[in-house]
């Protein structure tokens, strides 16, 4: 059974059909990449999934439950985590406090301060930020801020982690680490990422969904997508040609 499905999901802004009747299914445990030209509706689509914006019509089902009208914060509690396209860590808070926010919410054992610290340190170590625990997030390098963002996503213990352009602005060396990190995350969670960097997509994704003009143009394994002439015309041709 799919972890997440959408049926006829649409979002219109005035006359613009940003997302137009999308039927989509995501299996548990997979790493799925969404690609497509700028303005194809990718970010709008994942914003609909995360609940940041409301659909004009259609339906979203997560783990068998209809979440179409559920507020964003409740979806997060169900296990749908979203990391922002533009880095939006809390710049004036320490790395510790940034991660403590998601950690303390997922804790169920009540009051112990030690549990928060343990959880925070675990998430920071996983992303290689353990030595920055007391630094203000705004003073971290850009790459580290992106990693902190991922650490916050991880700390939510998501079942579905949505990453919106996670490698944007990362150096090549950081990208390799990042790929390893996503693979590790995918051991316990399903990952849906929007990504422009094609090498990253080809290395990471189990399957790829191609968006164009608010609709799904194609879907398949990296090999199938690479071979798809329609996709080459609409997207690969446009960026690499």
């Amino acid at each position: 059974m799919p972890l997440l499905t959408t049926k006829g999901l649409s979002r219109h802004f005035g006359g613009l059909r940003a997302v137009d009747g999308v039927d989509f299914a995501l299996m548990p445990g997979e790493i799925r990449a969404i690609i497509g030209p700028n303005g194809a509706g990718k970010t709008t689509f994942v914003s609909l999934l995360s609940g940041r914006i409301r659909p004009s019509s259609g339906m979203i089902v997560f783990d068998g439950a209809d979440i179409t009208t559920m507020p964003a914060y409740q979806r997060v509690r169900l296990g749908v985590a979203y990391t922002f396209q533009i880095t939006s860590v809390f710049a004036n808070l320490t790395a510790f406090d940034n991660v403590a926010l998601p950690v303390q919410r997922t804790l169920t054992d009540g009051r112990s301060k030690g549990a928060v610290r343990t959880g925070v340190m675990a998430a920071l170590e996983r992303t290689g930020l353990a030595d920055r625990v007391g630094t203000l997030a705004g003073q971290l390098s850009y790459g580290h801020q992106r990693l902190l963002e991922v650490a916050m996503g991880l700390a939510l213990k998501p079942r579905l982690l949505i990453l919106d352009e996670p490698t944007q602005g990362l150096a090549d060396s950081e990208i390799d680490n990042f790929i390893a990190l996503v693979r590790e995350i995918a051991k316990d969670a399903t990952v849906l990422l929007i990504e422009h960097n094609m090498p990253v997509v080809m290395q990471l994704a189990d399957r790829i969904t191609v968006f164009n003009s608010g609709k799904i143009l194609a879907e398949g394994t990296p090999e199938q997508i690479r071979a798809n002439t329609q996709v080459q015309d609409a997207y690969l041709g446009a960026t690499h040609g």
Partner: protein
Amino acid sequence: MRDASPAKIYALHIGVIALLFALNFVLPDYHQGLFARIMALAVFAMGYNLLFGYVGMLSLGHAMFFSAGLYGAGLTVYHLGWGVPEAFVAGVACGAVLALVIGLLALRTSGVAFMIVTMMFAQVFYLLVLYFAAWTGGDQGLVIQQASRVITIGGASLDLTNPTVRYMSALTLFSVVLIATLAIARSRFGRVLVAIRENEERTKMLGYDTVANKLAAVVISGAICAASGAAYALLFGYVGSSFASVQYSILPLLWVLLGGAATTLGPLIGTLFMYYVTDIASSFTSAYLLIVGIALILLVLFAPKGILGSIRQRWLGWLP
């Protein structure tokens, strides 16, 4: 590390309380009275700071919560003959309920609209006080007799008009609220409030119901301000509509800005400083409001972080 040991932080706060306790025995009569007043009003500032400093919500209507406590306590004593403890509880309850209602409405707005909406609700409250002058005494106000301001516990009785009893009562309330705001600031709830101030949208996406958290902050803030108002009515024996006027919504903002928003001790420092500045100034000019006005402008221009906020930024990063 910006993390200071909790022991150091609590030691500082208990030290401040101990100092205020000791001052009771050294201060001359006049200043002892002034300090009691300042401590009672610093509670008002601390309640305001919880919302303005930590959650970043600028209300221009907190006079209504202060005066809900003032009238909730004052009128139950004056008209219903309630005892001091019951009246105090009634005052705090009035403030909390009012804050809940106002919060539910005003939290539909944010930013500038929130400021104007809170100001308007406070204006309605002020006008209602004037409209029901038959009960509230309107702008003349009501004086609560000394006989009504005595707490009797068992055989012992505490006369709130006695300067030392009054000072100690104000100090008790101040201490409880100071430690409570410190605990809130260091708690998980406090961390969420600060996160909302920094980026509400992001906080939502971490799974927090930000509206519920903000509402909780409004209610706690309203209850603390009401506690200050109730204490003021019972300790100083007067309730009047001037406490509900817009000026009393501006004053806590001024005190908090001056002392340092989102610092636990800032509200006390701001209230103390402003009270003494106006006290000294009033000996050679009656233009009290002029000083308030100039202070506000100079603060937003040159020291938006306030006294303690600037100290924290420069030297003492661990200050809560």
